[in-house]
């Protein structure tokens, strides 16, 4: 009789223990991702911030045109891979450090009431937070390395895509209406200056005036969006840590300087040519 009662008590306590173990296991499974993120030092808000910062570091001159194609996939799909192996390693560490984390219940825990168990589970993350800062920096460095690696791979892809298009056609400098206007203006001014103005002042003064006028007139012409090419130089500058905006501005300035230089060359060429033609005509007329 007593043995049956004892057996019943035992089975009852075992089943209660089993029930508690089941509850604990379910809780662990439900919050495992959050807990892993906390262990790894990857808070809930971090992925959003990192996505934004990564987007800021990404080359904007391609983002405007090809953002959805090129950069949406990494931003839309969070990177689980760097954390999964770490998570598995860390979970192993955490298991060894905190035996209560194991799925199977321990005899010590089974004797504790559920409320205390819950408190201990809640408190554990707080204890882990102290170690988060220590473990956070190598993970951040690892994340940074991975993001740079991703950027390098994407830039390599872009370069590979742009190479056939460059090989297929010549330079992609299209003549927009403003450019044509500038060149024609330079030619006409050169002829005018040769005929009327050069005797009185330097030929470069009217040219500078013309360039200033172009700067003012540029807003009246339709703006042609020039797709910035990803060259090896821009890729190298991006990977070396120079912000994309700085590169964009420098490229823009360089492009403007190139336009001015082209105008100057056309102007000077036309001036010398018209000078020679006038000399020829002057020598031919009796």
């Amino acid at each position, binding site marked *: 009789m007593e043995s049956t009662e004892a057996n019943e008590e035992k089975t009852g306590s075992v089943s209660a223990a089993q029930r508690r173990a089941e509850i604990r296991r379910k809780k662990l499974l439900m919050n495992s991702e959050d807990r892993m993120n906390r262990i790894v030092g990857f808070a809930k808000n971090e992925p959003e911030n990192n996505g934004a910062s990564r987007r800021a570091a990404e080359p904007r001159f391609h983002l405007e045109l090809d953002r959805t194609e090129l950069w949406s996939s990494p931003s839309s799909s969070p990177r689980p891979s760097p954390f999964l192996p770490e998570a598995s390693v860390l979970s192993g560490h955490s298991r060894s450090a905190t035996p209560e984390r194991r799925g199977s219940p321990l005899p010590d825990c089974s004797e504790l009431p559920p409320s205390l168990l819950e408190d201990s589970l809640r408190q554990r993350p707080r204890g882990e937070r102290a170690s988060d800062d220590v473990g956070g920096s190598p993970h951040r460095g690892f994340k940074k390395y991975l993001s740079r690696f991703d950027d390098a791979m994407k830039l390599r892809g872009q370069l590979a895509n742009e190479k056939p298009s460059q*090989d297929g056609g*010549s*330079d992609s*400098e299209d*003549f927009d209406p403003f450019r044509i206007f500038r*060149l024609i203006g330079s030619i006409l001014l050169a002829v005018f200056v040769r005929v009327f103005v*050069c005797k009185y002042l*330097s*030929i*470069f003064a009217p040219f500078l005036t013309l360039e200033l006028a172009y700067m003012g007139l540029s807003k009246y012409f339709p703006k042609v969006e020039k797709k910035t090419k990803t060259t090896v130089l821009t890729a190298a500058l991006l990977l070396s840590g120079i912000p994309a905006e700085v590169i964009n501005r420098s490229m823009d300035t360089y492009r403007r300087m190139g336009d001015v*230089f*082209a105008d100057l*060359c*056309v102007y*000077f*060429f036309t001036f*010398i040519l018209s*000078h*020679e033609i006038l000399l020829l005509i002057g020598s031919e007329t009796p």
Partner: protein
Amino acid sequence: MVQKDAEQESEMRAEIQEMKKEQSSISMMDEFARYARLERKINKMTDKLKTHVKSRTAQQAKMKWVVNIVFYILQAALMISLIWKYYSDPVTVVPSRWIAPVERLVAFPTGVAGGVGITCWLVVCNKVVTLGLHAVS
């Protein structure tokens, strides 16, 4: 060589087309073995054609690259030879006050006041021809 490759390719394409025609005339249910044999032949020929096309395009790209390099070398050699030969002779001479304040730069390396040096003229012509070619192409 390129023509020969193109002929080979067109032959392969014609062969594939014929086999596909033949395959379309065969009923898969009635003559499965023959259909499958033809399918395999078509796949093999298609792979062969793809490899052929790849190698041809790679060869063409290589040739293009070589021609480009040779062209650039010739251009550079021509420029250097012109500068070497005419470094002291200006292209033309204009009153120096016309091209102030950069008369020295324009006259380099002739040293003639008001002269237009070969270096400056080559740079200007290079740019103008590039722009002209862009406009034409």
